[in-house]
């Protein structure tokens, strides 16, 4: 896949900005030129910002009648050749799930920002949560793979939004940025570099836009109006796009390829960051804002002479099994702090089935604070 270097849209320098707005700027820098959304706390700032900024770069902005319309029109725009995005929060994301499945099935590159709040249902609209990570992975029906990414700072709201677009284009898959209310509303400094790496989809003409013998499993994606006579359907289809609604072989091949094109590239997709992990007796595995509180905790524990480390998952889906196994190899106890009743911990326990894995959940509709993680983990640190 050819890599391009684009100039950043905003002048390169240090900015002080809100996470949701950094996300919008990251999208623009990545080449996003279509946004369809519906207002929802706590993600609306992204939409408000793009309503002003997209017309400045000849992009299209539309506020749709609901989240279902938002994701559907985004998929339509993507087939018309756009890099397209929508942003929402839990209730809206729930409405989008059928469309998410459609994007997976039709291999439509698109980016969904989910600034997570508490749930279920309306929950607490202005309060942070991290309860949508399993929903992002499993929420649409049927079997499939998506890519889920979690930012922990305003810097990453910018950087990882760009990364989301790149992954969506490379693998022809919807990418979900699993932010949370804290990161979305946090204002802090971040740096826009002069140049950014950009990947664009292969939109060459092909009579087989839904099947490939290429190793990467990603077929080329012609766009509407090129004369490719595309048959795009959410029903089971063969490599030409022809509906095969009762053919067991086609169904099997399609689902296997949709999964394999992500599974086979885990090494390239999965990004993590390690802090003081090498000699750690006590390993914290976390993501998003919970990882930031965990980071404060391991520094505090190290000051006390306790060998604690943090493995932070930037990529949640696909799950970084191998990286986690190797990071946890020599540690005694693994802690998984998160702002839900224990979702990520299920995956960690699956991977580290021979280790003591402790869940540190919080569902009070506020951020998980370092003191809470510290106090809970101290019960297991001898």
């Amino acid at each position: 896949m050819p890599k391009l270097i684009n100039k950043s849209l905003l002048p390169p320098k240090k900015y002080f900005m809100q996470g949701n707005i950094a996300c919008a700027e990251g999208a623009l820098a990545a080449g996003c030129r279509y946004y369809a959304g519906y207002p929802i706390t706590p993600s609306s700032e992204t939409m408000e910002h793009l309503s002003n900024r997209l017309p400045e770069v000849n992009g299209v902005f539309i506020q749709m009648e609901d989240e279902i319309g938002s994701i559907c029109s985004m998929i339509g725009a993507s087939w018309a050749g756009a890099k397209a995005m929508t942003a929402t929060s839990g209730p809206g994301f729930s409405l989008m799930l059928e469309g998410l499945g459609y994007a997976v099935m039709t291999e439509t590159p698109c980016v969904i920002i989910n600034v997570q709040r508490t749930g279920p249902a309306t929950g607490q609209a202005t309060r942070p949560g991290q309860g949508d990570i399993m929903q992002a992975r499993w929420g649409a029906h049927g079997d499939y793979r998506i890519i889920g990414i979690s930012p922990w700072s305003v810097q990453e709201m910018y950087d990882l939004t760009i990364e989301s677009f790149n992954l969506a284009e490379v693998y022809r898959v919807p990418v979900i940025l699993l932010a949370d209310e804290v990161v979305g509303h946090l204002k802090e400094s971040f740096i826009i570099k002069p140049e950014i790496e950009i990947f664009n989809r292969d939109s060459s003409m092909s009579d087989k836009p839904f099947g490939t013998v290429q190793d990467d499993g990603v077929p080329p994606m012609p766009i509407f109006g090129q004369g490719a006579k595309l048959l795009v359907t959410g029903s089971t289809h063969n490599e030409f796009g022809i509906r095969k609604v009762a053919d067991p072989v086609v169904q099997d091949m399609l689902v296997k390829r949709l999964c394999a094109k992500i599974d086979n590239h885990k090494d390239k997709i999965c990004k993590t960051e390690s802090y003081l992990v090498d000699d750690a007796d006590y390993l914290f595995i976390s993501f998003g804002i919970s990882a930031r509180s965990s980071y404060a905790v391991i520094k505090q524990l190290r000051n006390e002479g306790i060998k604690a480390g943090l493995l932070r998952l930037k990529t949640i889906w696909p799950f970084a099994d191998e990286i986690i196994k190797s990071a946890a190899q020599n540690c005694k106890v693994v802690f998984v702090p998160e702002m839900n009743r224990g979702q990520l911990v299920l995956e960690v326990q699956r991977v580290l089935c021979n280790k003591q894995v402790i869940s540190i959940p919080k569902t009070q509709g506020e951020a998980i604070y370092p003191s809470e993680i510290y106090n809970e983990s101290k019960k297991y640190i001898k």
Partner: protein
Amino acid sequence: MSKIKITGFGGQGVILAGEILANAAVMDGKEGSAIGSYGSAARGGLTSSEIVISNEFIDAPFSEKPDVLIALSQDGYDKFVYTVNQNGIIIVDSGMVSIKPLPKQYELQAANIATSEIKSPVVANMVMLGALSAITEVISKTALINAIKETVNEKFVELNLRGIEFGFEKGKQIK
């Protein structure tokens, strides 16, 4: 690393004050973060802003045990006054809050100053920031002024700067 918490009710400019403070720190060449928490209603209700100022990457952007608590309302004062760090200080609008007898507590009547001397009750938040700058080393007055010039709508810059000046002078008196 300094952790500051500003608390009040919706409409007092608590979140804006937090953002200006953190932005000022960034303009000073430090790292600064601000996160507001508020209810679902657009106005009213308990509101607070957590600010962290640091020379390095800020880990958790929260002020669980603030070094400085700035309280503009009774609810916020009551909720957070005992969370203040052992060596921390409290700056409180004593015109709005009936205070408890505590050490390291600085009182000024920010809302009264804003109303009577600046003729604009909305800048009580800036009066508090000015006082913070005078009482502590957390942030310089120059940085606050620069941050206001950058973030606040042109029409209101002058007004906000007067709030900072009045607060700074008052802060020096009570320090």
